[in-house]
């Protein structure tokens, strides 16, 4: 990838062009059910375990931080509320995003990149099959679905981890912890987090597919593509997360 500003602009342009192509191709029949299920299963299988393993310490760290903070402020009764809020609103979409991009996206990018340099993609186009329709759309949808489901998993594991550390290790009161759950968090927080996960899943699959389909220059090119796809996805995800959070606070009235 060239480092000139024009090169960067061109790449962003083609990335958005491909995103638009994906949206435009979305309603086209026949929908690739088989490919979608295979990909969804594949992405789920490479992400579930690491996600669960990451979200336990993540929930624990939040619980530890909030536990000591609320003690200093004398607001122990709110420790449960604050930790649920943190896990649900921020931690779970971010953990989901990191794992979808890091485990799912890299696999998609490497797979498509390898096919590209072996001329399989060219062969497919010559056989009259649009790779966006046949390969990219099912991957994007699979990644979105899995991201939404993973987000639920992270929320549950994260809150459970937080509970365990607060109550068992920091001697918090179980009743107070549970009772304060809904004093700050509300249902729309969960919807917002799921929406974030949906968007993150789409972004990481589109970037990975774009990088994979434009890989060139042999096996090294595929490695470079995977590397760039992770970096680009992370940057995009954190910016998107910031924007969505800002919009969320404007749109949804907060409790208390």
């Amino acid at each position, binding site marked *: 990838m060239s480092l000139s500003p024009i090169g960067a602009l061109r790449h962003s342009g083609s990335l958005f062009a491909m995103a638009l192509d994906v949206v435009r191709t979305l309603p086209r029949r026949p929908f690739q059910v088989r490919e979608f299920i295979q990909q969804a299963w594949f992405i789920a299988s490479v992400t579930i375990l690491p996600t669960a393993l990451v979200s336990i310490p993540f929930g624990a760290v939040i619980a530890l931080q909030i536990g000591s903070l609320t003690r200093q402020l004398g607001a122990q009764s709110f420790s449960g509320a604050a930790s649920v809020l943190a896990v649900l609103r921020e931690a779970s979409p971010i953990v989901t995003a990191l794992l979808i991009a890091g485990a799912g996206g890299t696999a998609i990018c490497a797979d498509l990149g390898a096919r590209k340099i072996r001329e399989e993609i*060219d*062969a497919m186009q010559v*056989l*009259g*099959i649009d790779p966006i329709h046949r390969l990219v759309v099912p991957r994007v949808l699979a990644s979105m679905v899995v991201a939404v489901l993973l987000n639920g998993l992270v929320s549950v594991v994260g809150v459970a981890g937080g509970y365990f550390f607060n109550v068992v290790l920091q001697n918090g009161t179980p009743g107070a912890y549970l009772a304060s759950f809904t004093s700050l968090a509300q249902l729309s927080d969960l919807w917002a987090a799921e929406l974030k996960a949906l968007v993150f899943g789409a972004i990481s699959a589109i970037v990975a597919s774009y990088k994979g389909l434009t890989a060139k220059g042999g096996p090294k090119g595929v490695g470079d593509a995977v590397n760039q796809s992770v970096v680009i996805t992370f940057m995009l995800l954190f910016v998107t997360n910031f924007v969505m959070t800002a919009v969320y606070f404007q749109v949804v009235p907060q409790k208390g």
Partner: protein
Amino acid sequence: MGVEICVEGLTKSFGHQVIWQDVSLTLPAGEISVMLGPSGTGKSVFLKTLVGLLKPERGSIRIAGQDITRLREHDLYEVRKLFGVLFQDGALFGSMNLYDNIAFPLREHTRKPESEVRKIVLEKMDMVGLIGAEEKLPGEISGGMRKRAGLARALVLDPEIILFDEPDSGLDPVRVAYLNQLIVDLNAQIDATFLIVTHDIASARQVPDNIGLLFRRELVMFGPREKLLTSDEPVVRQFLNGRMQGPIGMAEEKDAAQVEQELAQIDDSAAAPAMTPRLLPGSGITRPPRWQTIAERERELHA
């Protein structure tokens, strides 16, 4: 019946590097044409431009009344169904076995029942001599088998135009001879328009109706086989005879003075090019009128 391809003023460059410019030729319907050229003259790029994988800077490619350089992506996919392309390494899908690879276009584009798909796939596999290798993955077989499987896949949709990207590279001479025979037999059977991109002179002398030569960023000559085989054009003679003396050098071009000197050295009387007999369809194949005429002519020429 095959389809005519009409190329006019085609120019392709990557960045500032011109690959070839102002290429104009007509591939006659139902005939076999060969595109020759030293390595690195953009033969494969030419082939990819014909199927619309690469966009040329200037010029037009007319196939079945449509200029494919100006088609929208969606229409391009429709036109491509006319094509069968054999890529250099076969370009098989690595995750599928040979049977699924060859059945792939049928399953994607037609609603044929699986029994009929099986019949067609096995027929094409038989044609290229791959019966018994259905369950093999592309990674488990030799380059020659991959090529033949790629050819079978290119054939399943009964294309009107078949493009071969170096069908003979990496194959032993015996397999090349078989493949050439297969190409000629196929042409007699399915009547499609063939374009073979290669730098194998022996094949180019035996197989085609027409020969073209790309050199120094342009099409040096395109015409009937006899015309090129008997041509006095130095580049054409050098290439078709595989000599060192002539305009083509190791690094593509030589300086003019050296070329003059070398050409003077060649004893032209001895190098009167002999016409190589044409390869004809095998005995088991019923020859269409076009091939009957060709066979007739060959008999007179080499009687």
